[in-house]
């Protein structure tokens, strides 16, 4: 029956619309309606999903009326990005471009300008897609996720946020309010690499890398990979083998072999067979680390 049901134009389901003005009001609604409620941020994922009937929420909680959630600011611990920050704002923010170019580079790779003008970083993360273009860089920079609920605010490393299979760590009545990115090591370079079938496509594989050098050797190294496992992952083994070594071709060869062992692409993902994702995750990891090293040298 789904051919008669699923489309991206008509929204025949009925729902109640809420536009809370505060965080407390929001989490109260989320607590009250539980799984029947869906948060509306940019809407670039939620609305198509509703039209495609992948979700049929009875309550829509539009959080756009809480402007403080859209902030991008420097704080003592690093940089804070509100969950409602538009991808286009992250792409163009002078602060992000200077301090976290990895994030602006990744934001620029998402869809079209029209999509980025609507889509938010919080939505990109909470949608829990393994190919989310903001997830990989946030993992590579060890970002913390801030979650608000009736019992107050808590935060934890983003690596703990993704459960895989399209699920994230959010309990009933909880709302992601933003992300804090700690200061990167002095002189760190970064790079984001992505392969999709076209410029506007979602990632078949994406990789984010952050590298700092000490006496010509790799000091800090983080590599995150998306769309090649059920959730975005860190290439921990590859990071370890690169630390303390010169970024030589041999070191890279060893590192990317380890990348290939840690990714777990699924056979049923129709976009590309596992072997393709495995091979390109190696290529993209190599490109990302190489470019991050070049940036660190500058």
């Amino acid at each position, binding site marked *: 029956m789904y051919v008669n049901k699923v489309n991206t134009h008509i929204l*025949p389901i009925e729902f109640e619309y809420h536009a809370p003005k505060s965080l407390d009001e929001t989490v109260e609604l989320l607590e009250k309606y539980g799984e029947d409620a869906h948060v509306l941020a940019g809407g670039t994922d939620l609305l198509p999903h509703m039209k495609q009937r992948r979700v049929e929420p009875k309550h829509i909680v539009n959080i756009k009326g809480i402007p403080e959630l859209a902030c991008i600011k420097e704080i003592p611990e690093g940089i804070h990005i509100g969950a409602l920050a538009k991808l286009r704002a992250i792409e163009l923010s002078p602060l992000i471009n200077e301090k976290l170019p990895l994030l602006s580079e990744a934001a620029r790779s998402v869809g079209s300008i029209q999509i980025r003008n609507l889509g938010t970083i919080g939505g990109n993360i909470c949608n829990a897609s393994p190919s989310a273009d903001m997830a990989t860089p946030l993992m590579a920079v060890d970002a913390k996720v801030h979650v608000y609920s009736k019992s107050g605010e808590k935060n934890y490393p983003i690596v703990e946020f993704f459960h895989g299979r399209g699920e994230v760590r959010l309990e009933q009545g909880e709302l992601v309010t933003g992300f804090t990115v700690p200061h990167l090591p002095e002189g760190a370079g970064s790079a984001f690499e992505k392969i999709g079938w076209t410029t506007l496509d979602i990632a078949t594989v994406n990789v984010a890398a952050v590298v700092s050098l000490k006496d010509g050797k790799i000091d800090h190294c983080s590599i995150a990979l998306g769309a090649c496992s059920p959730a975005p992952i860190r290439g921990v083994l590859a990071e370890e083998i690169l630390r303390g070594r010169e970024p030589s071709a041999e070191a890279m060869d060893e590192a990317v072999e380890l990348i290939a062992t840690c990714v777990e692409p699924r056979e049923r993902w129709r976009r590309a067979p596992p072997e393709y994702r495995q091979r390109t995750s190696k*290529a993209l990891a190599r490109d990302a680390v190489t470019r991050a090293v070049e940036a660190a040298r500058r």
Partner: protein
Amino acid sequence: MSSKPAFKVLGKDTPRQDGVAKVTGREIFASDMAFPNMLYGRILKSPYAHAKVKSMDVSKAEAMGAVTLTPGEIPDIKYCPRLVSVPSSTYKDWKVLAEKGHYVGEPIGAVAAESEEEAQRALESIEVDYEVLGASFDAFDSMKLGADLIHEQIYLEDDLIDVKNNIGCQLEITEGDPASLEAADYVIERTYRTNRRYHNQLETKSVLVRPEPDGGVSIWSTTQTIHNTRLLIHDIYGIPMGKIRVYKVALGGSFGSSIHVNPPVTVAVGLALKSRRPVKLCYTREEDIRDHCAYQIIFKLKLGAFKDGTLAGGQMEAYLDIGAHQIQAYPLLGCVVGWWVSLYRLPYKEYVGKAVYTNKVPCCAFRGYGNPQTTWVVETMMDELAGMIGVDPLDFRLKNFIGEGELFWGQGPTVKSIIRSCGVEEILTKGAEMVDWYNRLKPEEQTGRYRKGWGVGRGFHTSSAGAPVPSSIIDFGGAMLKMNEDGTFDYVSALMDHGCGTQDAHAKIIAEELCVPVDKVNIIRADTGTTVYDVCTHASRGVYSGGGAALKVAGKVKEQIREFAGRILDAYPHAVRIRYDEARGQAVVYAEGIEGREVTYRDVAETARQKNWGTAASVESYRQPSCPPHFTGYFVDVEVDTWTGKVKLLRVVAGADIGTVINPKLAAGQVHGGFAQGWGMTVLEDTPYDPESGDLMNGGSVANYKVPTTCDLLDLEDLTVFFADTYEPTGPFGAKGLGEGALNPVAGAIANAIQSALGVRFFQLPITPIRILEALKEKEG
């Protein structure tokens, strides 16, 4: 070389009359229209690839207030939605609402309600009991003995015929001496498989139908032919033609997908007649992608050549995987052989074409109508054959191409004419010079991650399906032109503009003939009641045929202007001359050498009005005398990333022989667009099926059907377009077509470039990064 006259209007860039409306979003398309009291229609689709509808319960939908339509409420008529061929060549297997779903997405019922949302809810409430049948998703499976018949009986004209082995129709042609091929020094035989591309035209198929008090209907729809729309609605619903008014409305893209009358039109007419209210029905993108696609063809090709580099002959088998219905499969069987044998001289040619039913979305014409597929195959093999003989692939083409003075039957065996203008040599030699072809990099010279390669491909398309004698294809048009009292002109024609600026080309042809600037010629949007018949905008006939009709009426109006002016000036009509006077903003008719003996168009028209002489006007039908090919050639430079399989475009040089160039920037735009579409065809696009669900693997989502955007192409400074210096003596002011030729050789050129970079040849489209990595692994480990 050409003997082009000096033109005043043609060959110069002029803005389109609909340009401002389109770039400001003020253009009205069928999907923008609304009438008071209008209902919204939705079509119930078969969720199975092959299933009989045993019963359908619409009571819940009706209880919700919706108007419903079931198969039994529509006249029981089998038809073909494309009315371009003569009846004896037209196979009919369609019904407005089918009692059996032959593919996932086939219309089996419909509803109309006060809003699209209500209509959707009503649609979802319909209960259907199906009997699921065996389905086939591959042409060769369909032809197997014992396979379920998708159609048991179909009509050819009015004769009921039995379908055997799911073969809808077939064509065999043999010409020449088989001994020639047998004597060949080199022979290659291969199987090629093309992709099943979705047109992805911007506007999804849409219609608005208003029932009229006299029992008739007015229709605004996505179409390439208003007159054939009227013919089909007349055939199905029996409404007298004069009571069916099909209005021209801006077309938001088609690429051949609306040559036939679209299912939303036939269904919405039924809903409007039953509800007695206007009904609007717009396909969602997910419905549109399950409505049409390009003809997928599996080719077996054998070509032979002699040591001296001339071709000895060839054999082709073409299996068309046409999907669940015939739209224009039979004429395509003729065109495929036409496309093949009109590229290069073959002393012997043997052809078998079969159109095979599968339980997939029905194929229809898609820019090039089988020519991009055929040319990819031929151009791929020409390269391979050249390598075998040891001649440069460009020289091999130059030695064998069919050109001026030779017989041409691009539109198939019933449409033959002699080529009178040909720019192939100019395109190939000039292009080769521009890219330094003979010093290009070879695959064996490259190792490492990134590898580069140049490829060449050439081709043609017909401009119309005209010929000196009648054929199985109907091809004529017509136009009306009248002079207004201020010296401007109104041009009226049934010919649809796909968005290519075709009607603007007509206006320029009229302006050139009447010695006025193009802004003096207004393009009037009309309907079936106010225009003479035009078959359809297809076959790249818009400029050549439609422009021919425009020139014919412009010539007649000019005669009348001369006649009127002759009376006013007391001069002989055939002796007066016409010039344009910038200062007066008027064309002036004058008797040469006699001072004061002149009169403006405005005064001619005004005098004719006051003296009751009448309006200078003309209505004519026009049949073009020939079917001239327009030729194109592409030189493409690519770089392949052997780690990711991604192919990047570095440089493209394109040459086109379109006779007289009417609007250079629009013509170059056609080439850019043709290249973009060819790029998508070669490296990206396909609609494979999931045999379990019987539905498209992409689930109907364009998010999973990628086409290139401008960001995926190359900068315009790296895409050079040049036009050959030619003049088509049978065309309006020497003009030919371009739309389809701009696409046809692209896949061949890109595929040859990829081969030249990697040393690997591909026999299946698209050549995706996944396939490239697989092939490289096989070659290099």
